[in-house]
């Protein structure tokens, strides 16, 4: 790890004032410290948010939404009764992420900002496109863990399980910058990296996430997150699926299906959602939607297995949510 300056500001305004392109925010540190130790990033300045009075880890109900303080840990999301009652898929996603030790440290604010686990990106000897280079080495290299959807120059997949669930629930990210309090819908928050912005989100560098709000689901809504891993626990998703379905009198009235581990951002399976809406909830419709969810996948040389896996995950998420 390279030398860096460290500060612990007293107010959020002070924190924002300290931010520039050489500074990074530190909360749980579970991603940032591994990036620094791996010499993938070398910020000159770390701004510690953990004791900022304006930030909290409170999970609360506010006017039809669940408000989650940015410093809420994954362990909290896994065990909080409000989350279990209103956003069960979020608790499920937290429970299958990382390890208990990591979940005790990792925050929801950091989770949505974490960088991909691509083994080229994470190797300090490889100067890939995402790190400002010219080439995506995974595209022609070993891409077994890489994307099957999307058209980014980068084929790394987004590592977050929670992110897919937040997209499925239609969450909003609240943040502060020098202009004051801002908010952005989570689907707009995640955005494939571009030539000019090689990150997986659009949050400005001089901003601090304060909380994430999630609208409470409609009556009759059911949700589920499932994930396939290389081993039983402690691995990033080979493919995951978040499903939120509203079933009324046996008919699907609304559906959100969002995939993990298959694109540079959480991937919404819109065609599958459309196929499901209006259909009779049941194995047949779920199987059909699951096929559609994977239909336009374009696998790379080594990740063709993700196509049937997406189908399996979507079918399972729907089956387990929709009954």
């Amino acid at each position, binding site marked *: *790890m390279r030398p860096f300056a460290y500060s612990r500001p007293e107010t959020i305004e002070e924190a924002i004032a300290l931010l520039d392109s050489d500074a990074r925010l530190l909360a749980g540190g579970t991603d940032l410290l591994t990036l620094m130790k791996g010499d993938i990033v070398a910020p000159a300045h770390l701004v510690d948010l953990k004791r900022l009075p304006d930030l909290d880890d409170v999970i609360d109900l506010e006017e039809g939404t669940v408000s989650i303080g940015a410093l809420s840990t994954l362990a909290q999301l896994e065990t909080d009764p409000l989350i279990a009652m209103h956003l069960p898929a979020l608790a499920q996603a937290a429970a299958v992420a990382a390890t208990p030790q990591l979940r005790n440290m990792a925050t929801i604010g950091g989770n949505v900002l974490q960088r991909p686990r691509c*083994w*080229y990106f994470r190797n300090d000897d490889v100067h890939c496109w995402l790190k400002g280079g010219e080439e995506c080495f995974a595209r022609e290299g070993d891409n077994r863990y890489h994307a099957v959807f999307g058209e980014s120059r980068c084929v790394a997949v987004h590592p977050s399980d929670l992110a897919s669930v937040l997209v499925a629930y239609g969450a909003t990210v609240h943040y502060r910058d020098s202009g004051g309090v801002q908010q952005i819908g989570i689907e707009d928050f995640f955005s494939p990296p571009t030539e000019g912005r090689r990150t997986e989100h659009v949050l400005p560098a001089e901003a601090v996430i304060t909380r994430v709000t999630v609208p409470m689901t409609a009556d009759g809504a059911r949700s589920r997150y499932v994930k396939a891993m290389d*081993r039983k626990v402690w*691995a990033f998703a*080979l493919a995951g699926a978040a499903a939120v379905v509203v079933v009324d009198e046996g008919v699907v009235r609304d559906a959100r299906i969002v995939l993990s581990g298959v694109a540079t951002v959480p991937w919404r399976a819109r065609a599958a959602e459309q196929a499901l809406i209006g259909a009779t909830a049941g194995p047949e419709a779920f199987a059909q939607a699951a096929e559609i969810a994977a239909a336009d996948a374009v696998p790379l040389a080594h990740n063709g297995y993700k196509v049937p896996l997406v189908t*399996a*995950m979507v079918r399972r998420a729907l089956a387990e949510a929709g009954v």
Partner: protein
Amino acid sequence: MTTLKITKGEEKGKLQLEEQEPEMAAWGTDAALAVVGQRHPRLEAIEKVTGRAQYSSDVRLPRQLYATVLRSPHPHATVAAIDIAAAEVLPGVHAVICAENTEPIPWYHGSFVFDRTVRLIGDEVAAVAAESEEIAADALRLIEVTYEPLTHVVSMDAAQAPGAPKVRDEGNVAGEPKVYSRGDPDEGLRQAEVMIDRTYTTQSALHNSLEPHGCTAAWDGQTLTLWDSTQSIFTVREQVAQALGLPEHRVRVIKQHMGGGFGAKQISWKQDVIAALLAQRSGRPVQLMLDREAENLVVGNRPVSRQRVRLGATRDGTLTAIDADITQGIGAYMTGGEASNVSGMYQTLYRCDNVRTVQTPLYTNLNPGVAFRAPGHVEAAWALEQAMDELARELGIDPIELRLRNYSETEQLEEKPYTLPEGLRLSYERVREAFGWDTRERPAGEGRVRRGVGFAAHDWVGGSGSPPGYAWIELNADGTADVVTGTQDIGTGTRTGLAQVAAEELGLPLEDVSLHLGDTSTGPYSPVSSGSATQATLGPAIRAAAIEVRSQLLQIASTAMEIPVPRLSVRQGKVLVDGDERRSTPVKEIMRQVAPHTLHGQGARGANPTEKVARTFGAQIVELEVDTETGEVTVLRVVTAHDCGRIVNPTMVDSQVIGGITQGIGFALTEERVVDDRLGLVLNANMEEYKVPTIADVPPIEHAAVDVPDPEANPTGAKGIGEPPLVPTAPAIANAVFDAVGIRVLDAPISRHRLLDLLTTQREHAS
């Protein structure tokens, strides 16, 4: 007393020396033993669970520096120039070494500690000692190296291709292919009524010991002390002394507690010499521990293999031929230690008159291969035991029955009987019964989740002991004993098992015995802890030393108690009188009468039997489920039985069984070094992407202990168990996967993506 038998050796300039053990009755089936055979936690358990046990990275010496190594970012290059000037003047830096400012020290075969040619990503280019690891890392970034890249090869196919870049000047075949043949294999294949002809591959597995390689080096005048994470303090002493031009008695190597080695620590690696040189330059102690990435890039791995296997058999299941053509990718260098002998199991596990093996090692621009828990046999078992399973199905014969029909009671390389010829048969019987093999339910076969069972057997060349090895015992004036050997406890429980042997023969309770090991300056020579041999090598030496001490004790007791020696014995700290319980006298009371004299014994491990061959065997059954939709394999149950001779401590043996099978599950399902061919880069040299099993991946493991003494192997009747449990796990899992879904997975590991691809292909063929 040890007597010596000295004969002219076959090799010129070599004598053959055998230490002859004193007369002792081997501990056979009827031996009445009090301490040996009992469960006992590790003697150092409290130190370990309270964090007080000192591992290599815990060493803290006054003024100690920390070192780190600059490693090549190129898989193959010439080092044209190195500029260390800026690093040397960084505050806190005390020494910087590289090829420019050190004498060339030969290392590996035909290379140097700092070579002008680097042959893999991770090869050592320079090293820095500084007041902290952080300063050392900062200094590395100030070293400027000019590389002239060369073309590289990382796959076996690329290494064998015409016109392939040469990893070494002599070409990409490392030495001569090893060819073995008996009988007429071609004729055997012609006579076969059924033939299996398959090509299997195994991956490179990384040892990933919790404790990485590393050491602390300190000079005291002319003497170098190394606290080293090693399986062989005497091998490190010899190699380091040779590299630095020191006499062996000026090098002291210490290893007290070990966080795993699994074969990768059988030899000295470059960091031992680098730390010693940095300590010399700086005049201060230097600690050099490898980080996880270096651990996985440069200090060994299980070599990849490709094995074309042909089995011929008659309709009744008699093998007519076994033919294996084996290629291995051994990385850029030949290392020492146990060879990964993939051929061995083909030659010995089953009775067959016509056998041929050809084993061709290939150089590639990668981490050199080194022994990994049952080297060669794990690779061979993956192929041979799947081929046997296929043969059994082809013939419609139960897989255990097929193996019984090809049972060998002799070691077929030397055509000598095994010391315990029923060892493998007993393993079959125990595992079959404990699993309920004959009454198992047939899997349903239709649903999304399918269940299967798989069987695999193995033999292992190790476990029988490797003389020489020595031990000393001092019986103290208070009736306690210090037992000293120069072996090391690599985490297997050696300290405890050997102390049990000493306590048994001395007639003392275990708590009255201290076992000292892991220090070349205080203990007599012992061999490398490898080949599952340590208990079987040193147990008899300790028995011999204890017999000498006990005999002296009984002479003293005889005088003190005025009873002739033949009526006396020692047990549980008391001298007992035959026929008169009331006269039994504590050992300490006898010893008090001669204090401050103490009693001394020394023992040597005698030669292994010459007319018979001692080996270890085992058999395993796995039950699992396969989710046909997601490719997920869930291992439900593993039952295993092993002939490891007498079990000295069931707790330690069970621990080896659990650890070995856990590694076997990893090898079967998730563990695989992944390399980018174009870049020559290992993509998962870390614990995140290199996936060892977690506790959630490991099912209940049932050890159906065989526990039959093998007194003809050595006088303790105990053999080894460290390596064997891992050997049959992966093929048993592969056979169970076939049983569940009808897919034969030829390439290890059975990862999610591989199995899903195969399931998809199967589905496409069906429709």
